[in-house]
């Protein structure tokens, strides 16, 4: 563990959050993102899930200028519980020409894409393989809305759904009510998050929604779970995204100039039952994952120049601002009021439209965040390009209501 490895390695002293003493010294190889791909998000009744996975994989392979033969490991991230297939990963791998290198499927609810990235990252960082592809794939629109809502709400069946009819909107609505009561956050401030994310989605041809909206649109839309209204909620979307990772040796071999590097992946988790939480204004798993990621990457929140945060509901983006340290706890509403999370502001957030307006095909989301940030860091984001100096970006992907969380820091 203490030994130096031939120049390509990096020693990371990871200090655990609980208990406070140093618990591990990790010895890892650097991992680069050499290419990315993203299907169009939306109601994709024109294609099956392997067919939309192919769209993302084709773009990623062409982006890297490599073939399936150059890849050693495939990791599929999907929730998959709205599919007609119960074991989708082999069928996805088979369809895209990766049948012989896909030994697992990874699931961590809405953070499945990041959990898959974490799995592939570790396989390269540990030296087990030199290249890997991560595919996040999800179809949510082949079943009707009450069924999809019920599947989503069964995060904790026995003690919550069975008796109370919870849905994901209701879970986040519970956080919205508590946040509004404690910090004076308003429905208008929540609406402004949706307005921002629709503004950018309208400039992203791959986004589910292509229209700008106003605060009035949000406030006048029908109530889903008070205080959340239709436009506070992300849509049910179909989509796929792919990320190809490589070790430093392979980066040289493929002659990739100036790639994006994964500086850190931090993780956090929390109780399954919401009634076992201490608080409903913050996600502890976000705080833990980001603290870990900042520590490993040796950066601070103020070093982040562009962020993708988990805005499945508008309140989730407000909480993310605070829990990631972009502003003080309770000041999330003020940050959007001041338009600090638009391009040109203090910290541009979700400038691809976010989950809220680009769409949230569960397993695809974590990979799609990496897709956007990679293109931002390569200055390829066109009319949505964030001006960069430090070339440091952050992706924040939550599973359920903070039951899982991954924070990934990228640099170029």
């Amino acid at each position, binding site marked *: 563990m203490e030994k130096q490895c031939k120049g390509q390695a990096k020693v990371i002293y990871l200090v655990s959050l609980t208990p406070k003493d140093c618990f591990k010294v990790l010895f890892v190889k650097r991992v680069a993102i050499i290419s990315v791909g993203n299907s169009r998000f939306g109601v994709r009744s024109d294609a099956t899930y392997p067919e939309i996975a192919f769209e993302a994989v084709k773009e990623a392979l062409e982006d890297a200028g490599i073939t399936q033969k150059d890849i050693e490991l495939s990791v599929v991230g999907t929730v998959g519980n709205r599919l007609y297939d119960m074991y989708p990963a082999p069928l996805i791998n088979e369809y895209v020409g990766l049948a012989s290198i896909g030994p697992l499927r990874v699931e961590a609810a809405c953070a499945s894409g990041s959990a898959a990235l974490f799995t592939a990252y570790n396989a390269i960082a540990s030296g087990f393989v030199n290249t890997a592809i991560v595919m996040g794939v999800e179809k949510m629109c082949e079943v009707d809305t009450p069924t999809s*809502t019920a599947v989503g709400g069964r995060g904790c069946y026995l003690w919550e*759904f069975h008796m109370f*009819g919870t849905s994901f909107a209701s879970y986040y609505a519970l956080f919205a009510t508590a946040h509004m*009561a404690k910090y004076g956050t308003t429905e208008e401030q929540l609406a402004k998050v949706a307005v921002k994310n629709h503004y950018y989605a309208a400039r992203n041809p791959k986004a589910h929604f292509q229209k700008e909206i106003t605060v009035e649109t949000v406030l006048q839309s029908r109530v889903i*779970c008070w205080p959340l209204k239709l436009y506070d909620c992300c849509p049910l979307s179909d989509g796929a995204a792919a990320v190809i990772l490589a070790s430093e040796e392979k980066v040289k071999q493929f002659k990739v100039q100036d790639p994006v590097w994964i500086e850190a992946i931090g993780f956090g988790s929390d109780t399954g039952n919401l009634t076992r939480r201490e608080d409903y204004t913050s996600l502890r798993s976000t705080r833990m994952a980001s603290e870990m990621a900042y520590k490993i990457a040796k950066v601070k929140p103020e070093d982040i120049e562009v962020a993708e945060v988990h805005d499945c509901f508008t309140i989730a983006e407000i909480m993310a601002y605070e829990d990631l340290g972009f502003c003080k706890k309770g000041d999330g509403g003020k940050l959007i009021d001041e338009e600090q999370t638009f391009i040109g502001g203090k910290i541009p957030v979700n400038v691809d439209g976010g989950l809220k307006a680009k769409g949230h095909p569960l397993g695809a989301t974590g990979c799609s965040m990496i897709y956007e940030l990679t293109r931002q860091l390569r200055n390829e984001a066109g009319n949505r390009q964030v001006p960069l100096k430090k070339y440091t970006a952050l992706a924040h992907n939550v599973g359920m209501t903070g039951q899982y969380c991954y924070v990934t820091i990228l640099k170029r």
Partner: protein
Amino acid sequence: MSKAHEHLTMKSRALILTHEIPISRTKKYWEGLKEGKVYATKCKKCGQIYYPPQIDCFQCLSSDVDWIQLSNGSIETFTQVYLKPQGFTHHERNYIIAIAKTTDGVRVMGWLEEKDLKVVKVGTPVKILAEIMPDGFPIIIFKPA
């Protein structure tokens, strides 16, 4: 074959999943709901209280618990559900899901018995009750005290 969103689609064979959930170890809880009472477990060895009830204490690994009734609490947060999931669409009322912190220090989820959302506030003290609904499923009810 049918057309959804103007694309050609084909219906799958339906899958119906109904489970037989083992509740013998938490029988006291489910029986309690029928009597209008909500129970938590308390480890006899270390005193840890669990809600939802669990008969295995993860702190001291003992499986010897007392059942304690939760009676009073105050509302920590709530939401009124308009878009109901499959299984709840027969409820005409837009039910209010709330989380209450009990005087024992644990939190309970329930439906808040209050028609006017405007009078509901975080901090409202409530009585914790339970009953069996007309559809046969149990429900925990928070009644403003």
